[in-house]
């Protein structure tokens, strides 16, 4: 049975998304009336008025987001009135796997930070080894051999095959 807690959480999520969209649209409008106006591009005809088109889009986005708010509230009221009717069972969340997904996302972020300074050759095997370990690979050999091999293969494909120089970082280390 879908509980009122689920419905409330869903409504909160919808309202948060609508708020984020309205915030983005408001930022666009703010930029139009400040930065673009300062550059003399917020008024006049279609040729000079660089703010006209983003203004139309941002205004439409705000209007549609408000429509979404109304629809979400209506759906919430309808679902709370029908809360006695058994519905689908709430999806069981495996917090362990969600934690793994977050850990992989964090690893990727750290990788991107280090890539520019340390370079592809050093950071990539570490990234792969981290992700393999997070996803359950335990064999030390596999945690070393496979990441290093994949790093070298991809480097060969892109650098030798496509003539693309992968980041060498401040240390100047390349493959």
């Amino acid at each position, binding site marked *: 049975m879908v509980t009122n807690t689920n419905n409330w959480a869903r409504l909160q999520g919808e309202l948060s998304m609508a708020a984020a969209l309205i915030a983005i649209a408001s930022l666009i409008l703010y930029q139009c009336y400040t*930065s673009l106006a300062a*550059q003399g*591009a917020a008024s006049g005809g279609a040729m000079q008025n660089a703010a006209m088109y983003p203004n139309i889009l941002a205004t439409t986005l705000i209007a549609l987001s408000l429509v979404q708010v109304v629809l979400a509230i209506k759906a919430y009221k309808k679902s709370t009135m029908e809360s006695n009717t058994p519905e689908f069972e709430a999806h069981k969340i495996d917090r362990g796997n969600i934690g793994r997904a977050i850990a992989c996302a964090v690893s990727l972020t750290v990788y991107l930070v280090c890539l520019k300074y340390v370079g592809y050759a050093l950071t990539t095997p570490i990234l*792969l080894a981290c992700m393999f370990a997070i996803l359950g690979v335990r064999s030390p050999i596999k945690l070393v051999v496979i990441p290093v091999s994949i790093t070298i293969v991809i480097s060969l494909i892109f650098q030798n095959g*496509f003539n693309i120089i*992968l980041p060498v970082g401040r240390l100047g280390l390349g493959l």
Partner: protein
Amino acid sequence: MYYEQLLSGIPLFLTPLSILMVCLGVFLGLVIGVLPGLGPLMGIVLLIPMAGKLPPVSGLGLLLAVYIGGSCGGAVSAILLRIPGTPMAAATMIDGYPMAQKGKASEALGYSIAASTLGGLFGGVILILLAPYLANLALRFGPPEYFALAVTGLLSVAVVSIESTSKGIIVGILGLLTATVGVDSFSSVYRFTFGSTSLISGFNIVSIVVGLFALPEMFHQIANGNLSVKPRVESVRVSFRATLDTLKRWRTLVRSSLIGVFLGALPGTGGVVAAFAGYAAERSLSKTPERFGQGAEEGVIASQAADNSCVGGTLMPTLVLGIPGDPSSAVFMGALFLLGFFPGTALFEKHIDIVGGIFASYMAANIIMLFMGVLFTPIFVSLLKVKKQYLVPIIILLSVVGTYALQSSVYDLWVMLAFGVVGYFLRKFGYPLAPLIIGNVLGQIIEDNFRRSLVISGDSYQIFVDRPISAAILLVNFILILWLITPAGVRKRIWKRIVRVT
């Protein structure tokens, strides 16, 4: 005259490099299509850096072959594992998986590969025959018509957004807004750069696509678990006899291929809609509809034929009008820009040999797909046995390196990550992702033609209704908007009636 000029493109295709690239593209497309969560869109994105280094017909042939192979490859995991490798393969799964359960996996795979090839060839013939007429019509298009048509493309994507059409339009508008970041092409002022020199060049389409689709999907795969489980997949052997059996069902083939081409030519629809429409039409016209869902061969043939013929249909508005039919063709169009070619009548007037080369590559890719599909299916099946704990990090790394390779820029990677976060939240709250890509690609077209129209008319909006073609297209847009605001129940009844009639 036009067809003679098209033939001038065939020598550009008949080079060892171009043929090799088409073969490679089909193989990679099939591989990418087999692996759930990727799809032809990702294949095109990952190979754009390579395509950019090749001669035009070779590079475009590679990307087109990936598109075609990827559209077919999704059926393998759909039939064997009940996991569609691509969204369009979900229709094939309905009857393909039950066929496999009855011990007919080899036949199901054979039908899907043959139907994909024959449907794709049908779509190619229609493309070659009709493209010049559409190009002639497009000569009468000016900025108001291109603006109206581009808006149609955007609205169409929202119309077929399953969860919510208003959410589809919202995401489409977000896509249009992403295209405004950078230097304004009319006044040369900086828009929404916040003082950053990196943002002056705007957002790279590859970064957006990879961030929106690949990263959330990979993290979603992790969150779903079964990371160290080796999927149990039965061995299969496909034969060419399935091609003959498929040809015997020529009515199903022709009908579904026509549906696929027609829907592909409509901006914003794409393979998913085509595959399901082809399937639904076949089931509704069948004398034994109760067989569908239980392993009906016609179900597999109809969905795959419609899906692959849709690729040919999609290329029509993409190449002739510069209006992409779906996200994959939008990225393909981006690749055309990168190679220095601009879709539209100019492409057909000044580079008809390149167009001929593209058409030749398209037809060859479909034929090569038949042979590769039949011969290499055991290899593709073995890919399904790779554990997710190895596959997911490798795909993430390929996505990162592929995105970096485009402009050798770490900034693009940060854009990719940012859109990964955006894609995660959009997906979590039921917002479709495809409209953002379509919006980004169409954004420049819509704004440029909108403002150009106003400049021509002296800032009068009357220009959009004074010109008959523009007015007609805007009328279609108005009907689409009416459709969007019609309650879902009423829309379903009307759609069912249309499918029954067609």
